[in-house]
């Protein structure tokens, strides 16, 4: 059991990446599209691992950053005629800037106040997109821009490679002094600050990294669908992203990638259930969380008990 865990910790990411690279060989076009969306979602969820899992800053505004990335990419290509690579860089930079700016008012907030702020931010962005018609074409949606790669398979392979690299980087941050500072901010902000952690800077970096990943995810979303509509960036989507990172184990990188794929694929697998689909979907997630939660709180109780004995 222990050996298995060590093996998984070392090669888990590699195994997932190889499996993902093989997916196009075995799937229909529609199944392939769903997996693609899963990979694209996983990219955003890696950002939430940093923000929520490491630093402990809650957010329900991820869809807004995703939208910022996707729309910026589309607009840069359509209106300014930028090539896809430049558009990608531009979109990631703009999203990073927006996410970082959002970080400033959020510095002094925590808990429910922070969550409400991020929900508000999400709505503002969505309504802005809906009403800024000359730029975003509002409810008609934005389409007609090129994808980052000429073929769908090309986009997919690029996505998987990028996702694997990002996962390695996220893991690396988690193990570094920066990751330690993030976890300290999560557990005890005052103690972290007194120990020489510049808490504001750590929060700023977390926000910026998360926004960058969301922006990149948005670029790939735009490339996958070729059509953007404000309706695909509601608070509902943000909640799903939160679910993905929670199910993945909050600060577990490989776990979050797998849970992103799982949560994306599950509703499609359950399609044969017709009307009761969403009911079963929610039930499966609830049961999973219940088991997971009980197991991890038991583990906590166990280690607390061992302190009492020693």
């Amino acid at each position: 059991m222990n050996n298995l865990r060590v093996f998984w910790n070392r090669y888990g990411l590699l195994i997932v990446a190889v499996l993902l690279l093989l997916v196009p060989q075995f799937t229909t076009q529609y199944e392939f599209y769903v997996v693609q969306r899963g990979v694209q979602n996983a990219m955003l969820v890696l950002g939430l691992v940093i923000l929520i899992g490491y630093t402990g800053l809650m957010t329900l505004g991820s869809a807004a950053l995703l939208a910022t990335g996707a729309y910026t990419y589309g607009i840069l290509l359509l209106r300014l005629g930028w090539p896809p690579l430049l558009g990608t860089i531009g979109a990631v930079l703009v999203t990073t800037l927006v996410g970082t700016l959002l970080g400033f008012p959020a510095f002094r907030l925590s808990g429910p106040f922070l969550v409400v702020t991020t929900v508000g931010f999400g709505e503002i962005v969505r309504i802005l997109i809906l009403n800024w018609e000359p730029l975003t074409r509002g409810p008609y949606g934005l389409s007609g821009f090129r994808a980052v790669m000429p073929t769908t398979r090309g986009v997919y392979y690029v996505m998987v490679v990028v996702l694997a690299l990002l996962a390695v980087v996220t893991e690396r941050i988690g193990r570094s002094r920066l990751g330690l500072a993030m976890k300290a901010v999560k557990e005890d902000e005052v103690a972290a600050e007194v120990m020489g952690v510049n808490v504001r800077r750590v929060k700023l970096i977390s926000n910026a990294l998360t926004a960058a990943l969301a922006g990149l995810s948005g670029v790939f979303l735009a490339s996958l669908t070729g059509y953007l509509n404000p309706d695909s960036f509601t608070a509902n989507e943000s909640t799903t992203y939160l679910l993905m990172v929670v199910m993945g184990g909050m600060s577990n990188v490989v776990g979050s990638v797998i849970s992103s794929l799982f949560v994306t694929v599950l509703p499609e697998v359950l399609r044969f259930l017709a009307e009761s689909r969403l009911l079963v979907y929610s039930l499966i997630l609830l049961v999973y969380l219940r088991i997971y939660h009980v197991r991890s709180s038991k583990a906590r109780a166990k280690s607390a008990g061992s302190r009492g004995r020693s």
Partner: protein
Amino acid sequence: MEMEKNSGVVLRTEGLTKRFGGLVAVNNLDLEVYEGQICALIGPNGSGKTTVLNLITGIYPVDDGRIEFCGEQINGLPSHAICWRGIARTFQNIRILGSQTVFDNALLGKGYGNGGAGVFQIMFDTAKHRRERAAFAEEVDEVLKFVGLDDVRSELARNLPYGRQRILEIARALVTRPKLLLLDEPAAGLNSAEIYTLMELIKKINATGISVFVIEHRMELVGELADWVFVLNYGSKIAEGTFEEIKENPAVIEAYLGKGRD
């Protein structure tokens, strides 16, 4: 003593005042801690001792007066900047990261944002980042050895017995490479064997040239350690001197035991 008054002062507060609403928690307090000294701050419960530490470390803003560290005014600086200048502290209620290892808890004393490898260097794991990592690990291991926690290096901090968690907090403070170490009731909740270990450790730390400023209730500890004692009551300094002088001071006895009825 007079001659080194200016050169040897590590920490000086002048007219330090803090109010919480109508309550004056710290009132016009003057303190001086000299280089290489162990100073103690004593006083009855609620006399404002911890508030003084929170003011020095920038957790509370100062209402009046100033705090000088090595000749530089530090009140108004954020806590992390005060730490970087060389003031480290521990807390009355232990504040370590229970879910992290002993090593990582100590490593936290290296802080973040104080130069060193930046976020991109960490992301790409550059040579500079790897060098820094190795150097820090060596330094942290040295400190863990110094305080006697090297045998539990990879344990989760919450699995340590209470006394060793206190030692770990001191180790984390030492990793910041302080010139001045502030200890907030380090002996609280320890048994007599653990207190003995703690006293030896504080002496050993002081012998490396680090000044120590300790808040303490236990008189035997103060008597054993402190070169100089400040007594606080209702936020004001009522006496200062060596432990022998303080012991005989009528105002101090009154603050601790109440007025006799003679």
